[in-house]
């Protein structure tokens, strides 16, 4: 009787076990890893030697960007495996989906940290394919080709998963300490009555202008006060508006007074004054 699929799978699982014992659980003890930053989940410095951290997602495209309708998309798995197969996009999505947060290091020397990935783990694909004992690497071919050739782009990196989507709208909620540090910078600019750039935790440096300018004369609040307010509430408002388009609604000078609603007689007087100022 030929081997059943179950037998093949059992053997595969046993091999995986061996693999994990001897080859995957690398001991880093006693080595002096290069690079900088806190340890990543493999016990190595987060930023490897020769890499630079980027906040964005650089797109380095040398050739064609093929348009692959999802109806035509296929994942073909073959070669040295017991159970070659082809999946449609729908079938691929029906496989167990996984999420993972990990760093991405590109060979072109940029690293993007803490990316949230969504997709099917390579392990899931391997379990379906049941690689033969002598299979050591996976080579992946893309839909696009080297410029001017019929050679498809390929990679033989040790893949841990096949990512189908990178969640582009990451939510980094700043800590109170980080906010305080930004507020300090803002205070400096406002005190010096100067324009400048704020250094944000993720490396961004937005321009801040006219922070010393009085914005609401009636309540003696400046542009700096407004920005400080938004910095303070950032940890609370960011999760609420994350990943949502926002309706732009700029307050014109004429409409600014309306923000100060009279809660008292003194408030009403202030509003009248502000209204008068706005007209002038």
């Amino acid at each position: 009787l030929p081997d059943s699929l179950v037998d093949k799978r059992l053997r595969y699982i046993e091999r995986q076990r061996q693999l994990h014992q001897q080859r995957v659980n690398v001991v880093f003890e006693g080595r002096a890893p290069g690079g900088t930053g806190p340890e990543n989940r493999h016990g190595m410095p987060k930023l490897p030697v020769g890499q630079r951290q980027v906040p964005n997602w650089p797109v380095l495209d040398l050739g064609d960007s093929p348009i692959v309708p999802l109806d035509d998309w296929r994942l073909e798995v073959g070669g040295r495996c017991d159970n070659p197969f082809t999946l449609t996009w729908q079938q691929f999505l029906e496989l167990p989906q996984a999420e993972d947060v990990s760093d991405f290091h590109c060979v072109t020397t940029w690293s993007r940290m803490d990316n949230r990935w969504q997709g099917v783990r390579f392990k899931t694909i391997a379990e379906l394919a049941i690689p033969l004992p002598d299979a050591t690497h996976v080579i992946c071919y893309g839909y696009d080709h080297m410029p001017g050739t019929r050679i498809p782009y390929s990679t033989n990196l040790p893949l841990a998963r096949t990512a189908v989507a990178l969640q582009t709208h990451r939510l980094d909620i700043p800590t109170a300490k980080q906010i305080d540090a930004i507020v300090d910078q803002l205070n400096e600019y406002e005190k010096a009555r100067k324009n400048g750039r704020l250094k944000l935790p993720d490396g961004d440096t937005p321009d801040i202008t006219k922070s010393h300018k009085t914005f609401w004369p009636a309540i003696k609040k400046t542009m700096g006060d407004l920005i400080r307010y938004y910095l303070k509430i950032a940890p609370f408002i960011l999760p609420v508006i994350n990943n949502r388009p926002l309706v732009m609604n700029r307050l014109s000078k004429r409409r600014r007074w309306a923000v100060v609603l009279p809660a008292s007689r003194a408030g009403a007087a202030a509003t009248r004054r502000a209204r008068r100022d706005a007209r002038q």
Partner: protein
Amino acid sequence: VRVATLDNDDVPNQLTGGSLKTLLYMAQLVSISMDPWFSTMDDLDSADQVAIDLDPQPGATFSQILDCAEWVEQELDRVKVQGFPKTSGSEGLHVYIPLPPGTPDDAGMLFCQIIATMIAARHPKVATVERMVRRRKAGTV
């Protein structure tokens, strides 16, 4: 600054919330009402939440707003839906209602309109569904 390009929209680029830089950019532009869409960038055609906006007219008290919020809760209870009240930017309340994935925009809107209309029908003295602020009566919500 996070910007998204949406199809079939008058505005070519749309600011998208979530990053500190975008937040500061909007503050600097004094675009500070931060009205987020009821859909996320992952699926702009469906709404994942809607809100019933309890907006007081001059003369209406906060306790009247709270009354309205309670009526909203009663109506939602009747159809076994949970709402989450939240203070709005100035003086009102928003009752947020999470929606099942893939709910069309219009369906969410219609649901809110049905709830609001029922409340207005039951409590005509305080609640109004008039969308035109100018036509709303003083002392209504």
